[in-house]
């Protein structure tokens, strides 16, 4: 009760409107907010909703693949599900979730009162609900949602019906939102650090986001250009990608993957940052090899621009091209290996405890590394001719994106939830969520390696009976993983409503970054007086 009174009192002195002030003021607060914490919350809530929408598409996929034969959906709808699952998860769940973390944490970690460009910040978020309304509305259109795969390869994608321009404009809007978010991150980090916070004193999370933001600015316009060319090919009789008119369908793949490969690092570099915050905290030991971690991230970002064609080894490139992209891709293993070794060295001779954020971070290191190994195998061009477009690839990128990016996001949520809400989450339930997720996600994705090696192509709604057994195991894992995430929602709601008690400014013994010097929850405007960094 006293909390409520205090909040209300705070509100009277121009604090943010709550529901207690009535629906109108409350809605206007969230629509017009320029506060980095509010916008961070909006991004995170939005991405959680998209995570469940994209997840429900995955459930349709796994239900249809539960056994051979078509039981539930038309193959066309199945293709829409795989396409929409990817688009929603990539652009709606993972990317906005990391932008949400950036909004909350970057100003608090560099000692800035807010993001550098608060109004643009508001705009970059509020574009997203419109983008995804456009995209998801295609599910109800004549001809169904886009079904040509998230990679949008022509000529197939040009067969899309009424949904096509909606999907293209949705992608344009998502790109605009990402670019504005990235500009804001760069402007904040480069201009608004507290006195004494030199670049090489910044927390790793800030560093990874700075580099990610440059990647976003470099590649989102490329994607926008590619989909615009598709649009004019379909409606304005250009033939950029049509061989009959002098165009080239393979050109699209080069352009798409010039965007697409940096894009996968856009989704993993901030995850590296999160894990590099969490492991030192719970090992009670500083991060091993801070400088080399920064250089490794920068090297990975650089290499991401010269490896794109390993996604298209089977299009028939000249030998020299195949060898170049094979060797360049293998090189990525070096800086990525350095990161993994540094995390292990950080744990080495630490004094570890295993609260939920640490559990997710440790699972990240294990499982992301498995995804790294399969990535190295995929880099070997002659072997890739067998792996390409099979479930082996599906297993690979879900290990790096689900047990990589999503696990890091889960770790981040548990790590900073006490800071954001001022309340402690339910530790036992958090550990249940961790173990259920980890067991089911491996049941879901590990057998897909076997399926791919045995010869099951990806993106098929029905399969030969020899693939039946592992598909059933995978589907059971999928349903279990999907249901386990409902527990996550319960834990979030429970924490926001008070959790298991007050968290205090520094709930983790080992936290050293600036955010732990602020009260929990932090005041609506924090670091109005910049801290002095030693």
């Amino acid at each position, binding site marked *: 009760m006293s909390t409520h009174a205090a909040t209300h009192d705070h509100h009277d002195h121009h604090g943010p409107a709550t529901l207690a002030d009535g629906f109108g003021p409350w809605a206007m607060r969230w629509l017009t907010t320029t506060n980095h914490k509010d916008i961070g919350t909006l991004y995170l809530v939005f991405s959680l909703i998209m995570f469940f929408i994209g997840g429900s598409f995955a459930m349709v996929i796994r239900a249809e693949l*539960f056994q*051979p*034969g*078509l*039981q*539930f959906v*038309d*193959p066309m709808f199945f293709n829409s599900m795989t396409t929409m699952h990817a688009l929603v998860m990539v652009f709606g769940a993972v990317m906005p979730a990391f932008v949400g973390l950036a909004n909350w944490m970057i100003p608090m970690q560099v000692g800035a009162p807010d993001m550098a460009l608060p109004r643009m910040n508001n705009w970059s978020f509020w574009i997203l609900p419109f983008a995804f309304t456009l995209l998801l509305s295609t599910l109800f259109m004549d*001809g169904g949602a886009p079904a040509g795969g998230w990679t949008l390869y022509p000529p197939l994608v040009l067969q899309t*019906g009424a949904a096509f321009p909606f999907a293209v404009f949705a992608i344009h809007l998502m790109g605009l939102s990402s670019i504005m978010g990235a500009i804001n991150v760069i402007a904040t980090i480069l201009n608004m650090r507290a006195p004494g916070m030199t670049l090489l004193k910044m927390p790793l999370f800030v560093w990874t986001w700075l580099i990610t933001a440059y990647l976003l600015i470099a590649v989102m316009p490329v994607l926008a250009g590619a989909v615009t060319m598709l649009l004019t090919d379909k409606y304005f009789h250009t033939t950029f990608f049509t061989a*009959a008119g002098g165009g080239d*369908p393979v050109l699209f793949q080069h352009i798409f993957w010039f965007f697409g490969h940096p894009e996968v690092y856009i989704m993993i570099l901030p995850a590296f940052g999160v894990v590099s915050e969490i492991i030192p905290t719970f*090992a009670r*030991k500083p991060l091993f*090899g801070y400088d080399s971690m920064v250089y490794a991230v920068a090297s990975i970002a650089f290499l991401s621009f010269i490896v794109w064609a390993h996604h298209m080894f*089977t*299009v*028939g490139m000249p030998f020299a091209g*195949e060898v170049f992209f*094979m060797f360049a891709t*293998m090189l990525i*293993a*070096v800086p990525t*290996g*350095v990161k993994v*070794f540094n995390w*292990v060295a950080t*744990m080495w*001779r*630490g004094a570890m*405890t*295993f609260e939920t954020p640490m559990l997710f971070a*440790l699972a990240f290191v*294990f499982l992301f590394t*498995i995804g790294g*190994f399969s990535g*190295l*195998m995929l880099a*070997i*061009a*002659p*072997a890739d*001719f*067998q792996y*390409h*477009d099979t479930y082996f690839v599906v297993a690979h990128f879900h290990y790096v994106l689900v047990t990589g990016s999503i696990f890091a996001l889960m770790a981040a949520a548990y790590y900073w939830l006490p800071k954001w809400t001022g309340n402690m989450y339910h530790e036992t339930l958090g550990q249940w969520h961790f173990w259920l997720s980890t067991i089911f996600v491996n049941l879901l994705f590990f057998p897909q390696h*076997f399926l791919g*090696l*045995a010869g099951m*192509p990806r*993106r*098929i*709604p*029905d*399969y030969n*009976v*020899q693939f039946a*057994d*592992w598909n059933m195991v995978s589907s*059971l894992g999928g349903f279990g993983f999907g249901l386990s995430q409902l527990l996550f929602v319960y834990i979030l709601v429970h924490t926001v409503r008070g959790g298991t008690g007050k968290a205090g400014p520094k709930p983790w013994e080992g936290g050293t970054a600036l955010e732990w010097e602020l009260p929990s929850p932090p005041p609506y405007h924090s670091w109005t007086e910049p801290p002095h960094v030693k």
Partner: protein
Amino acid sequence: MSTVILKGIARIAIVFAALAAGAARADWALNMTEGVTEVSASVYKLHMQIFIVCCVIALVVFGAMIWSIVRHRKSLGVKPATFHDSLEVEIAWTVIPFLILVAMAIPSAQVLIGMEDFRNSQLSIKVTGYQWKWHYDYLDEGVAFFSTLDREHNAARRLGSGVDVTQFPDYLLEVDEPLVVPVGKKIRLLLTAQDVLHAWWVPALGGKKDAIPGYVQEMWFKVDADKAGVYRGQCAELCGRDHGFMPIVVRALPQDEYDAWLAARKPAVVAVSSEPQLFSKDELLAAGEKHYGAFCSACHGGSGEGSAAMSVKPLKGSAIAKGPLAAHLDVVLNGSKANPMMTAWKQLSDAELAAIVTYERNAWGNATGDLVQPADVAAARGK
């Protein structure tokens, strides 16, 4: 619905029974196979080498992690160390992985060089991908045919067909007419596509390649002389609604059997006649029903009902099928301007197209009474 669930529960029980029994059925396959060509065997070897390297690295990294997790925990009263940097260590774990990579890169490049050597092939076959079938053209032999999903499988795979698909051991991997090749010969495939991207892949032959409209790509394979047999695969590049239903079957025969097959498969030499070929209505309708089923029904439906899922309007009662013949022939020969999924079908013979168009104009109550003869199609081709 309830039977689906019951069957599902029964299968779960079987899965767990099999897991418990540790059954080593082929269905629980874990790994790539060596295949039946030199290339596929060398790819398999490469795959295993990389896999073992990864396992060794995993053992070291995960071993250190697990050791640390077990021993370096606060609950054991450990005081955390304070070290956080070592240039020597950083250099070591940059250089060592780099050397491992170089060691892996060399054999990989060697295998790649072998795969890219297209010289001295002994038989060239042009492979064209269509939505959703393959066309094979033995370039110097005058033999060409489409290869489509087996009819029974095609019926069984329909949504709600009620057919238990587990009765077909080669479910979805069976075709009406397989590609036939001799063993021990270097077969060169020239790949292209008519409409969208496809990819030709038979795992046992090693490797896949995309079939791309406007491109002619090469790939080759040589089945080991002692490995005659039937090898199956399927399209590996998403190509639309029935991507999962365009299998590839390769029959590799000893040379003499292959020669016999080829001789039998070659079209009989037809006496050149100045008289144009004429068919009766019954002949046209019977042939039309067959060809319609093979080439048209995937999109237009078994009874001309179209497909709501693909926004294909019904042919039954359609303005084109019941309207002027010239417009109908134009769409079939040159494709539709309104819907790019309807591509040109001029690669079919005059007789096949005449039968299909006659069938479409008379079946399902369209009843125009029109008869279309091969000569009509031939005349329309030029326009």
